[in-house]
């Protein structure tokens, strides 16, 4: 089961479900901007450009039987962020949810952090399936009873009711970021978390909203000297003092919070020397790291730049231990991708439960599974055409040039408006969530 052994290529992936509107006319607010499983995998949260969070819950009734496929159904929907207007700068603050991160579950309720460009909110999602009945002073519908008519007393009892899922904002962490927040990451100590914008990283305590600690500040004294921004940041999964942040220049810095209050000096700098044969005008732009993720083990981290995925051993700073090309056929098309701004797209990446396979998105609604142990990779597509129940996904191939074989698609036919930027992998099982522009596809391992 559970992503053991293979994962990428021994596993055959089947369509399970698709969520979202069917019609091609995409409403801007429905564009999915983040996808995240919770720590058990039972809940799957998506955030969209309209500031809404939709949480799906895995149907666990048939889980005991391995043949049955578990489905994800809508559990809760709520408006997390609203558009705001910054009057001082005359700027609109988008309500788009940039990131969602779940907190580990401590009690019956679930907690998640969701953030837009400026404000992070802690949401509590709780269930209510019982309600008290039999009050003395009021009727069931709420009307007050005339106290003179009461002759006996009774004790109200809890009776079952239809399940109601409530989401309530418990904390609002605001006014700490001048620039746009790109990452949030919950610390393994379950008490603190970090939020990163283009130039600064702040450390928060989950209970305290009126102050945060600035732990990284790369803003130069003279803004005109700015050449590098922070693109992503994450806490180490086990070491609560360690975090990393990636930059637009393709470097990753690892910092130890025990070293000093302001972690401007990194303890490790991960950077691969540039391959001079690949140098072009676009070298810097495509080297910008769009996502960084620690492996579950905490031994490795993965970075995603425009054309590749790199796996780094935390003990080796001068080069990655593995490099995978996501869509090398785009290297010759960089000029047109620059013209249509696709070169600035920020793709995310994710690990499977046992760190043997990594996944990332591409264009034309393609996504890539890169098997580290077997050194093999496969390209799959999330499309309505391959959406029959339990339909096995067929590997896709892109023809870079020359003769196009049957079943191959040529680079020039790729739809660059159909991009898969956000993907998530269930922490234990081979279930993946892939977000196209406005649809969420759930694929599962084929079970015989």
């Amino acid at each position, binding site marked *: 089961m559970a992503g053991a052994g293979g994962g990428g290529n021994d596993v055959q992936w089947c369509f399970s479900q698709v969520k979202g509107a069917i019609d091609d006319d995409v409403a801007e607010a429905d564009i999915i901007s983040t996808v995240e499983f919770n720590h058990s995998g039972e809940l799957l949260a998506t955030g969209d450009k309209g500031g809404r969070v939709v949480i799906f819950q895995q149907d666990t009734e048939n889980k005991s039987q391995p043949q049955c496929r578990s489905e994800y159904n809508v559990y809760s929907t709520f408006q997390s962020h609203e558009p705001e207007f910054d009057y001082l700068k005359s700027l609109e603050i988008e309500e788009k949810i940039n990131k969602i991160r779940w907190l580990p579950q401590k009690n019956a309720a679930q907690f998640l952090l969701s953030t837009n460009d400026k404000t992070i909110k802690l949401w509590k999602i709780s269930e209510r399936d019982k309600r008290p009945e039999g009050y003395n002073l009021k009727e069931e519908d709420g009307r007050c009873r005339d106290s003179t008519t009461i002759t006996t007393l009774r004790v109200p009892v809890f009776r079952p009711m239809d399940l109601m899922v409530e989401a309530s904002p418990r904390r609002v962490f605001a006014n700490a970021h001048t620039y*746009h927040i790109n990452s949030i990451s919950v610390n393994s100590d379950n008490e603190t978390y970090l939020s990163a914008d283009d130039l600064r990283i702040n450390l928060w305590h989950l209970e305290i909203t009126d102050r945060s600690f600035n732990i990284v500040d790369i803003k130069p004294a003279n803004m005109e000297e700015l050449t590098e921004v922070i693109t992503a940041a994450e806490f180490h999964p086990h070491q609560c003092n360690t975090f990393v942040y990636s930059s637009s220049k393709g470097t990753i810095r690892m910092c130890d919070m025990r070293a000093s209050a302001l972690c401007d000096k990194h303890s490790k700098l991960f950077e691969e020397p540039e391959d001079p044969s690949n140098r072009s005008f676009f070298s810097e*732009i495509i080297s910008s790291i769009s996502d960084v993720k620690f492996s579950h083990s905490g031994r490795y981290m993965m970075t995603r730049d425009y054309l590749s995925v790199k796996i780094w051993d935390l003990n080796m700073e001068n080069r990655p231990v593995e490099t995978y090309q996501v869509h090398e056929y785009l290297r010759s098309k960089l000029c047109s991708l620059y013209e249509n701004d696709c070169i600035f797209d920020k793709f995310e990446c994710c690990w499977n439960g046992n760190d043997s396979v990594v996944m990332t998105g591409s264009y034309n609604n393609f996504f890539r599974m890169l098997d580290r142990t077997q050194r093999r990779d496969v390209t799959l597509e999330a499309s309505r055409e391959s959406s029959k129940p339990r339909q096995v996904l067929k590997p896709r191939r892109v023809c870079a040039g020359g003769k196009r074989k049957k079943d191959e698609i040529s680079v020039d036919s790729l739809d660059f408006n159909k991009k898969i930027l956000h993907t998530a992998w269930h922490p234990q099982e081979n279930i993946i969530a892939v977000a196209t522009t406005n649809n969420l596809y759930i694929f599962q391992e084929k079970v015989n």
Partner: protein
Amino acid sequence: LNYEIILSIKATLKNQSGLKYVSWIFESEAQKTCYLQERQQMLRLCLDKLHDSRMPSLHRSVLLANTMRHIQREMTQEKGDPPAYLCSTTIPHSQVFTPLCTPEPQIQSLDCIPTLSDMDQGYVDLTCSRCAEEVEMEIDVSFFPSAFATSSSSTPFTDSSLLGLTSLLEAGNTLGYLTDLSLDDIFEDIDTSMFDSSEAASIRTCVLCSVSHLLAGDEETKVLSDCPSTSPLQCSHNDFNDLDHIMEVLVGLV
């Protein structure tokens, strides 16, 4: 590596404030190369994208600015001497070329940045439709062959003040004249350290300053080199004073 720079047109241009200034136009006989074309295209796209306010993003602005700087560095490294100006259309080189850009006070004028082609490698096509449309010029066709025709080893400008003029004009264009500038849009003379959009603008300003840098001869860079650290408005103050002086010098020359 031989080339001849022939000063073919002296044009009197008017900017939006009605101030007349003189700009030089040349032609080059060198061949164009694909690489230079692409580089120019890149530079132009960088500028276009930096001006595009639809997607304000510090990350994007920084990447674009760095790409531009890289191209500029490459261009300066290729020539040890201060570059000459070249702004040509696709018409054959023997004919008249469009002049340097209209000195609009907005940064947009840099869309038709003069190409900095290597004199020894070629000129680059740069269609300045904006120039063609908007400039009003009285063309005085004059020739200064002996003074300005050069060999590959020397600069086309023997008079650094000429360089300075055009570079200052460019700087003036980039940084804007006082009166017509919509400061809210482009520059802010208040502390901008807190503001996203103006930071993107200041990156643009810096980049554009450095572009002007590139166009300037060494002697004149001291005016422009102050720009990154001073406010853009102060730069244009300096420009004005130098402009007057150089006008006198030029008029005397011609």
